C-alpha cells in the first residue's frame, strides 16, 4: 500500500512526468517534499518571476533546493538530462516554455531510467509531450473553511500505466504529508453522504 492514498503519487521513479495548471508550482513543491534530499530546479534565466524560498519552507527545507539558470530551453533540457542520468539528485524539476518534441521527451525518459531518478516538467497548458509517463493538472480550489488552506484539485489527465483520476488534496505543513479531501458533497454530514 502506498503512503499516499492517491494512485500514481508519489510520482513513479525512473520516469518523467508533467504538470500543468495554476498550482503546478505547489504540485512540484509537494513532489519535491516527498522525494527528499536535494532537488534541482531548472529554469531559464529570462523568466521574470522568482521562486521564493521562504514560501517553500512549509514543504521542504529550502537549503536543499538547487536551481540552474539556463540561457534557453535547449540548455535547460541538456542540464536536466545530465542531472537525471547522473542519479545524484532524486528529483529534477524543469520549467518548459515551448512544447517538447517526441525526441526530447524520450531522451529525458531514457535519462531518468538510466539514473533511477524522477523528472517533473512544469508545462504551460496544452504543451505536453507524448513521452510523459503521467500528466497532471493542478488547480487551486477556494476553501471557505480555512484561511491558510492549500486545497488543490489534482487531476491526472494522462497516465501511461494506470487509470486517470481526480482528487482534492491539501498539504499539511505540520505533519508534512498530503491529505486527500473528499469533495464538498461527499463530506460527512452533507446531504449526499447521509443518504
Amino acid at each position: 500500500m502506498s503512503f499516499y492514498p492517491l494512485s500514481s503519487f508519489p510520482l513513479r521513479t525512473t520516469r518523467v512526468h508533467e504538470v500543468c495548471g495554476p498550482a503546478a508550482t505547489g504540485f512540484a513543491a509537494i513532489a519535491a517534499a516527498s522525494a527528499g534530499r536535494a532537488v534541482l530546479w531548472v529554469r531559464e534565466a529570462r523568466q521574470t518571476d522568482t521562486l521564493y524560498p521562504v514560501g517553500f519552507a512549509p514543504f521542504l527545507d529550502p537549503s536543499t533546493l538547487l536551481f540552474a539558470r539556463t540561457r534557453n530551453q535547449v540548455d535547460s533540457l541538456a542540464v536536466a538530462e545530465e542531472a537525471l542520468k547522473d542519479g545524484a539528485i532524486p528529483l529534477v524539476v524543469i520549467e518548459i516554455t515551448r512544447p517538447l518534441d517526441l525526441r526530447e521527451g524520450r531522451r529525458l525518459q531514457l535519462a531518468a531510467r538510466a539514473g533511477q531518478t524522477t523528472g517533473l516538467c512544469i508545462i504551460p497548458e496544452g504543451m505536453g509531450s507524448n513521452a510523459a509517463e503521467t500528466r497532471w493538472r493542478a488547480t487551486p480550489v477556494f476553501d471557505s473553511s480555512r484561511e491558510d488552506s492549500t486545497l488543490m484539485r489534482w487531476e491526472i489527465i494522462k497516465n501511461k500505466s494506470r487509470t486517470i483520476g481526480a482528487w482534492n488534496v491539501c498539504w499539511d505543513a505540520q505533519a508534512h504529508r498530503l491529505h486527500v479531501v473528499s469533495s464538498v458533497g461527499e463530506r460527512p454530514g452533507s446531504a449526499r453522504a447521509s443518504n
Partner: protein
Amino acid sequence: MWFPRLASDRVLRARPTDAPFVLFQCHGTTETIRCLNRTAEAAGLHAGMRMADARSFCPDLISRPADPAGDVRFLRGLRRWAERFCPWVGLDGEDGLALDVTGASHLWGGEAAMLADMRARLDRAGLSVRLGLAGTRGAAWALAHFGTEASTEEDLLSLPVAALRVPPDTVTALQRLGLRRIGDLVATARAPLARRFGRELLLRLDQLLGEVPEPVTPEAEPPHFGVRLTLPEPIGLEADVMAVIERLLKPLCEKLKTQETGARSMCLTLHRVDHGSQQIELRLAAAMRDPARILPLFARGVAEVDAGFGIDRIRLAATVVEPLPIRQIDPTETPHPDRLQDLITRIGTRIGLENIQRFLPADSHIPERGFLVAPAAFSEAQSGFHTQRPRPLRLFPPEPIQGNGPTPPAQFRWRGMRLHTGCATGPERIAPEWWLADENWRSGIRDYWKVATREGRRLWLFHTPQCPGWFVQGEFA
C-alpha cells in the same frame, strides 16, 4: 645586489622619461617621496621629502603613487632571474638580493666578468644597481651600499659605520664618540662597545669580518602544478587525447596530494602540429585531486576541440588550487556529496558554474531581500528560513490592479482574469528599510494581504497607503 631606485625604475621601465620623476606614498594626510630618479635627485629632491616641498623645488615634477606590493612582486621576479648566476639567491630587505656565488663565479669567467655581466644585463633592463662582492654577506652589503664600483674588501675598514646595518641612532651615537669608520670600531676594545650599544653592533661587526656566519636563505620555489607531454606522432582521436590526459592527471594529482591541495580550476592546452593551440578550461565545483573523478569532466571540452592535422603537445595545469587536507576515510560516510559536486561541475561546463545556485537565508523583512542567491559551488548550504506568516511560492515584479481603500477589492482583473475575493487575510504591514535605498520601495509602507479568490487562485496582494494603489506580488500554491 642593491637596487637603489627599484620602485621608480620599475615604473619608468613602462614609460621612460628624462624629466624628474618621483613615486610618493601617503602617511595620513601628508605625501612623502618614496623613490625618485636620477634627474629628480639632481634637482635637489631626496627620499622622505614632502611632496608639497618637492613640487615647489621642481615645478615640472612627474609623480605617481607608489605601489609597495608591486615592488615586492618585482623583486621576487628579479630573484628568480638572478638564479641564472647561482642557485642560492635570497631576498635582502625591500630592495636588494643576496647571492651566494661561492663556486659559481668561475662559470662566468671569474668574479669581475660576472659582475660586469650582471651590470650590463641590469643596465639593459633599465635598472640601476649597486653591486658588492665580498667574502661575507655583511661585507658585500657594505660595499654595495657604501662602496664605489672600484672598492674591494681592502676598503672595508675605511667605510663609514653606517655600513654595518645598525639602527640610525646607534650610528649617530658612534659618530659622536668619534668612531666614524669601521676600522676605528675594529681597533676599539669590544667590552665597552657591547656595554654601551648592546650585542647587535658587535654581531654585525663580526658578521662583516666573517667571525660569525650569516647564511643566505634562498626562497622556496612555490609549487608548480603543471605537467606536459610531447608526442612523437600527432594524435587526433578523442579517445587518444583522453588517454593522454589520464597519463598527465596521474602525476599532477600526485603532486597536489603531496602539497595537500586540490585543484579548483584546470587548464588544458592542446598544441597542434600547425602551431595552433586550443585551451580547455575546467572549473570544478569543489577542490579535488582524484584523477578518476576529474578525467570524465574533460570529456565535454575535448569533444569540442578541432584537432586539425593532429595534436602533438599537451599541457595540463592546475591554475587555481585550494588547500585540501588528507582526510581519514570514514566508512559511515555517504559518497553523496562528491557525486553532487561532480554533477555541478559537469553542468557548470555547459551553463557556467555561477548559474547553478542555491538559496541562503538573509535577515530582512522585505520579501525580495529575505533570501540571497549564491552559486552552489562557492557556498555552503544553510538552513534558517523561518515563516511566521504565509509566504507565496512565486514572487513576481508587482503587477498593478484596480482597487481603492485599505481592504482588498471585492473583484479585480489580473492577467486577463476576472477574480472575486473570497477570503482575505491581513493586513501585514512591512515598512521599507530606510537605510537602503530601494527603487521599488519608493511608494512607502506596504500592507500585504493573502487573498483567496472564489476562482481558486491564492494571491499575495499589497496596498500602499502612502501612495494609494493595489498590486499583486506573488502566488501561493
